[in-house]
């Protein structure tokens, strides 16, 4: 054991001398009386997500599954985005023909400089939290490495209606296995990059993507 570790642990033990030796962690009771599971479902849940994520200056649109390809095309058009990063596992039949997809796969990952030059990224997500308008990425299929949704200035994220949960506790529970079993990195995204550092005025866009579009896909 390192000397420092030894000494810090010793300091802690002497600082806690009033704590009974047989006290267990759980003896300090934690009452989880807060709301863990929401009570919204279906339409109300989707509406809440659309409303809350929209409040962060993200552009949010509800669409049907069969409109997906067309809507991706329209969204990219609006941002004049052609060279789009496509994470491994993303369904290619959703991709519009005019796009120049830049595939990132583990065998041949795109370099940081390459990513920096591209117009945007299209990804799916692991979950979405309605109460806070948050999308959660777990680096799974269709989402890829963390850097993909970070360097390009435009992020188009596809959320299935059945991926929306109501509360923050449900969001954390939903990716718990990915962390515990696989140690995957988790990223919460709530609107585009922002800062309030100047006179506490919120400004969209500093280092992360300055434009965030969300397509909420039903049916």
């Amino acid at each position, binding site marked *: 054991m*390192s000397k*420092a570790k030894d*000494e*810090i*642990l010793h*300091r*802690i033990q*002497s*600082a*806690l001398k*009033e*704590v009974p030796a047989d*006290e267990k*962690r759980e003896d*300090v009771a*934690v*009452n*989880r*009386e*807060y709301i863990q599971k929401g009570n919204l479902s279906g339409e109300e849940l989707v509406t809440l997500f659309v409303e*809350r994520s929209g409040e962060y200056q993200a552009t949010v649109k509800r669409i049907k599954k069969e409109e997906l390809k067309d809507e991706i095309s329209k969204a990219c058009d609006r941002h004049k985005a052609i060279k789009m990063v496509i994470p491994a596992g993303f369904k290619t039949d959703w991709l519009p023909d005019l796009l120049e997809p830049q595939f990132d796969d*583990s065998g041949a990952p795109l370099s*940081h400089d390459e990513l920096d030059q591209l117009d945007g990224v299209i990804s799916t997500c692991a979950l979405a939290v309605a*109460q806070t*308008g*948050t999308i959660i990425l777990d*680096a799974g299929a269709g989402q890829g*490495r*963390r*850097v993909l949704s*970070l360097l390009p200035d435009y992020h188009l994220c596809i959320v299935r209606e059945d991926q929306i949960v109501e509360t*923050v*506790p449900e969001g*954390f*529970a939903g990716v*718990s296995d990915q*962390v*515990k079993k696989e*140690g*995957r*990195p*988790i*990223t*919460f995204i*709530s609107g*585009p*990059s*922002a*800062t*309030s*550092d*100047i*006179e*506490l*005025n919120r*400004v969209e*866009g*500093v*280092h*992360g993507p300055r434009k965030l579009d969300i397509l909420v896909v039903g049916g």
Partner: protein
Amino acid sequence: MSRQTPTFQETADAYLNNTQLRENLGHATHTIRDKRADIVGEMPDWEHLREAGNKLKKRVMRHLDSYLLQLEASVQEAGGHVHWARDAEEANDIITGLVKQQQVDEVVKVKSITTDEIKLNEALKKEGIQALETDLAELIVQLAEDEPSHILVPAIHKNRKEIRDLFREKLNNKELTDRPEDLAEAARLYLRKKFLSAKVGISGANFGVADTGTIAVVESEGNGRMCTTLPETLITVMGIEKLIPTWQDFEVFMQLLPRSSTAERMNPYNSFWTGVTPGDGPQEFHLVLLDNGRTNVLADEVGRQTLNCIRCSACLNVCPVYERTGGHAYHSVYPGPIGAILTPQLKGIEDDGAASLPYASSLCGACYEVCPVKIDIPKVLVHLRGKIVDEKKRNGSLKAKLDPEHVGLKLMAQAFKNSKRYERAQKLAQTGQNIFVKDGKISSLPGYLSGWSAMRDLKPIPKETFREWWRNRNE
């Protein structure tokens, strides 16, 4: 012998007279205060969340040794390295050594008060390593060669015109306007190049999870994601109190923190990483666990709750003292009410500056009301005042013991013990005040009390006390 920092009283006056600062701060704190109240107000279970947050932290503190060992094991199992640092110097040595191994002379940093606390940037500089702050406000402070004045918004004391002038000069951007959008854009362009070439990133940690080894960084701008994702090596410095027991507990803290801090339902970005992920992000991860006085705080049963702090800064934003003086008057990287209790416990009350901080409060209690982890700041302030006075009685200099407040309170304590003595003291004060009474009021007092009369009149003590009236009435 510890270094003596200036006292709060000595410094506050200069800041109080800075009208630009007062205006910037008043505007900023009131804006965020109102927003916080709204966003917290929409949570029907807020009090339950506060209570759970408080208890989870209490659980961690009472079993800190076992939780730290669990965290260490989890991080190592996930492919990370764990280092232990007893104090700032040891932490800086570890970090500097790790950076030098990578043979770089520049590192990118996420805003971290813990690294400010240990003066990491200075330590790196001595070894020829430039630490680049990437948070917009920290960048402003770094470019201005200034000190942070707020936990969350370190450049809260500067307005947009001041920032524009700074960027015009330091980022060599002569045409820059003072629109916040343009200022942010200037920072984006300047830092993007740096992020792409950085080999080493340094971060603090908002939370470390004992059972999974996950570290969390909570932020808005994306610079945190850049620093924790792009470099090949990531070094995270974490105070030993930043632990939470399990992944599930984020469901409490990640509701409490954003709403209390930036008054948002959720802040734009939260990064949670667990050791090293092959093919994604840094392939070398070091976690430095820092004590640097925290175990002293732990040893004080009343003061211990200070370690619950999740650095949201809600207490600063509601504090009527902080609002007027700003953060610099506290002479610490931890300003405001939380700083007033944390700094003296970390530094020790032998330092005059640190010992003045528990008195930099009117005990109004607004801080406790908003604290998301229910730190009873006023109670800890009063507790620390008690320790300071006890220390003065034991080891104080003759000068300290002849201090008028000390003498006055001792004398009054004697008088209050017995109602006869107390009545005599009342009479004495009635007579004694006569030389100060003019036109039915007291407008000037000497010495210790002059602070009062400089700006406030004092009503003279009436001829008849209440008890005299009662006695006469019933005779």
